[in-house]
């Protein structure tokens, strides 16, 4: 099978996974926030627990009229959601779901992931500019400023892991964690979070900012900018942005889990079994990150734009630089 064919098949699989993941996370968001707020959440759709609520919502979005504002730049306006989706879909390609279960085990795995995820920014800017709406424009500007500012700590936070693992391949990073003590003859590996807790913190905060989730949701800040760059979107184009947000949350959590928590690996389980439980283990670790970000979302208000920039440039960047230096020294000493 040629690699291109494999890629095409994988993209097809991803195209079905993304809506499912989006719905699962959306449903989790609804239910978890409801329980945090002494509510029940969706209850009726689907008979029990409102499990079909998100499907109903999706169908609703498809039924809605696809409005393009008169003042909008039509081609750009229509292309923006697609571009946002491309960045998300591309990320799925490199996530290792189990031993040998990496769709494309790129040598440059994590580097590729960071590169491809930055494409979404262009989509957001296009959406903000082309809507012909001042709120959208301000939202787009905020998004751009935010994504530029947080791209840097995101990349720098990863460097520590790459130094430790000595590879940029995501599967290689997992293997490095599994076999960390193998030279000493121990079967127990080490998830990098133990020495890279700072890196994980920076990575998680920066990925929240990349996702534009509270406390970093200034680009859509509905109490200020109505809906920011999404203001003029409706119907399935809005759904695209919506799904992209949740799918992005999934992939970034997956990368965080892979980099810092050992991905599909559980200590003491041989590869032959990991092949089957690996994806489930990874899903569990992803769920942890997703839960934390939902938890934060319903706890915090949003930052102000200048506070966000301060946090990025004056705190996260220096911290992650210091982390790199310390990790480098550690690597040499060890």
């Amino acid at each position: 099978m040629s690699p291109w064919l494999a890629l095409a098949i994988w993209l097809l699989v991803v195209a079905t996974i993304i809506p499912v993941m989006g719905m699962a996370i959306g449903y989790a968001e609804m239910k978890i926030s409801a329980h945090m707020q002494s509510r029940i959440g969706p209850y009726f759709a689907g008979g029990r627990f409102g499990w079909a609520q998100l499907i109903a919502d999706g169908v609703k979005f498809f039924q809605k009229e696809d409005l393009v504002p008169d003042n909008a730049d039509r081609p750009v306006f229509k292309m923006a959601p697609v571009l946002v989706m491309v960045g998300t879909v591309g990320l799925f390609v490199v996530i290792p779901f189990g031993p040998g279960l990496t769709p494309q085990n790129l040598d440059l795995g994590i580097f590729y992931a960071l590169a491809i995820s930055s494409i979404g920014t262009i989509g957001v800017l296009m959406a903000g500019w082309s809507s012909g709406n001042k709120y959208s424009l301000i939202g787009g500007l905020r998004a751009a400023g935010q994504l530029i500012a947080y791209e840097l700590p995101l990349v720098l936070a990863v460097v520590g892991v790459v130094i430790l693992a000595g590879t940029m391949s995501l599967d290689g990073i997992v293997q490095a964690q599994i076999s960390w003590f193998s030279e000493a003859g121990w079967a127990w590996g080490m998830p990098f979070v133990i020495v890279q807790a700072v890196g994980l913190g920076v990575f998680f905060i920066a990925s929240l900012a990349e996702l534009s989730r509270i406390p970093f949701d200034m680009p859509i800040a509905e109490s200020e900018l109505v809906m920011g760059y999404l203001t003029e979107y409706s119907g399935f184009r809005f759904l695209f942005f919506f799904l992209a947000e949740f799918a992005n949350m999934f992939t970034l959590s997956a990368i965080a889990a892979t980099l810092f928590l050992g991905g599909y690996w559980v200590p003491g389980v041989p590869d032959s079994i990991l092949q089957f439980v690996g994806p489930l283990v990874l899903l569990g670790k992803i769920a942890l990150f997703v839960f934390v970000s939902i938890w934060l979302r319903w706890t915090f208000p949003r930052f102000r734009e200048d506070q966000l920039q301060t946090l990025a440039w004056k705190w996260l960047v220096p911290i992650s630089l210091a982390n790199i230096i310390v990790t480098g020294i550690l690597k040499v000493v060890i």
Partner: protein
Amino acid sequence: MGEELEMTVAPDMVRNLAGAAVSVELETPDMTLNIGPQHPSTHGVLRLVAKVDGERAFDVQPVIGYMHRGYEKLSEVRTYPQITALINRIDWVSGYANEIPFIVAAERLMGVEPPERAQFIRLILTEMARISSHLVFQASYPLELGAATPLFFALRDRERVLDLIEMVTGGRFHPNFNRIGGVKPAVGAGPTTRKTIQDLPAGFLAETRDAMDRVLSTADQLEDLVAGNEIVLARTKGIGILPPEVAIAYGVSGPNLRASGVGFDLRNVSDYLPYHLFDFQVPVGEAGDCWDRWWVRLEEIRQSASIVRQAVDSIPSGPLQAKVPRIIKVPAGEIYVRAENPKGEMGYYVVSDGGLGPYRLKIRSASFSNISILRWALEGTLVPDIIAIMGSLDFVLGDVDR
């Protein structure tokens, strides 16, 4: 050439870094941003015409009048009892409290003194209206900062308080419960001709005590949730400072004025309800920033709950209604009665000529004066701060436009 370039650039670079603002350096076009009249956080139909340069607004002009209903004019063609139905729609978040100063003004002009029990019931319901209004603020203000969860905590208890108000008056928002000379017998209170009037619904007092306990514990929860939140502090401390002298000159009243450090509370000054019988404290802020305005309102919830508890415990028995003529004619005269509404000073200047309705009714509403300071307060602020400051003033458009 290169050196020369560096020479000219260096001081600017230093200043730029020190000032941490690039907007002055780079020429960017100004943009007029219309916030409202339909906008998620303008509390109705307020419109702000903001001239913004990037994120900074240098001139914000509030535009009101989208909700002007002409109550002052309408009052001139209505009888006194009919007017109460209008005026509890002024500040609908605390509908009940709006009626009190007007009713008191009419009673004073007529020389009628309502019975003590009626005054107590009025006081209890007024403080409940205050609690429910402040809970709406506690719900909406974090939402404007981006936090959704306090909304549910605050509204849950507001619902209980509104239920209690409904239990007595039959209306949640617009009770229209006061009568000149007393209060209406409560809904479901039985035949009113009997001597043994059962005026408050059975179980009301016990449920009120219970509800007040819940309100107090919710206030603690809100304090944990909001005051313990670093981002809330970063968004509100030192933002939108109203110095006391400016606030006074603009006629800003109520919690907004007290947050600026002026301990002025009409409940201590005017005798429109028997507040002197109760122990309560007046929370006073220090800095006059958004944070203090939030804190003062939270503390006032606690104080009001305490007042309600005291009033419930000491409510006297007796009639609900003083003797008044069947058709109410108010003798000629003028009076201004003001009350401490949840939003601030609410007053009615009633000019009567002895007819069925007033010759002129001037409604002094709190929010109107409170937001007239917006232009002053919003000059040179950031767009997110516009929302933070606007929300912290806690206005209702019905109370602004009347």
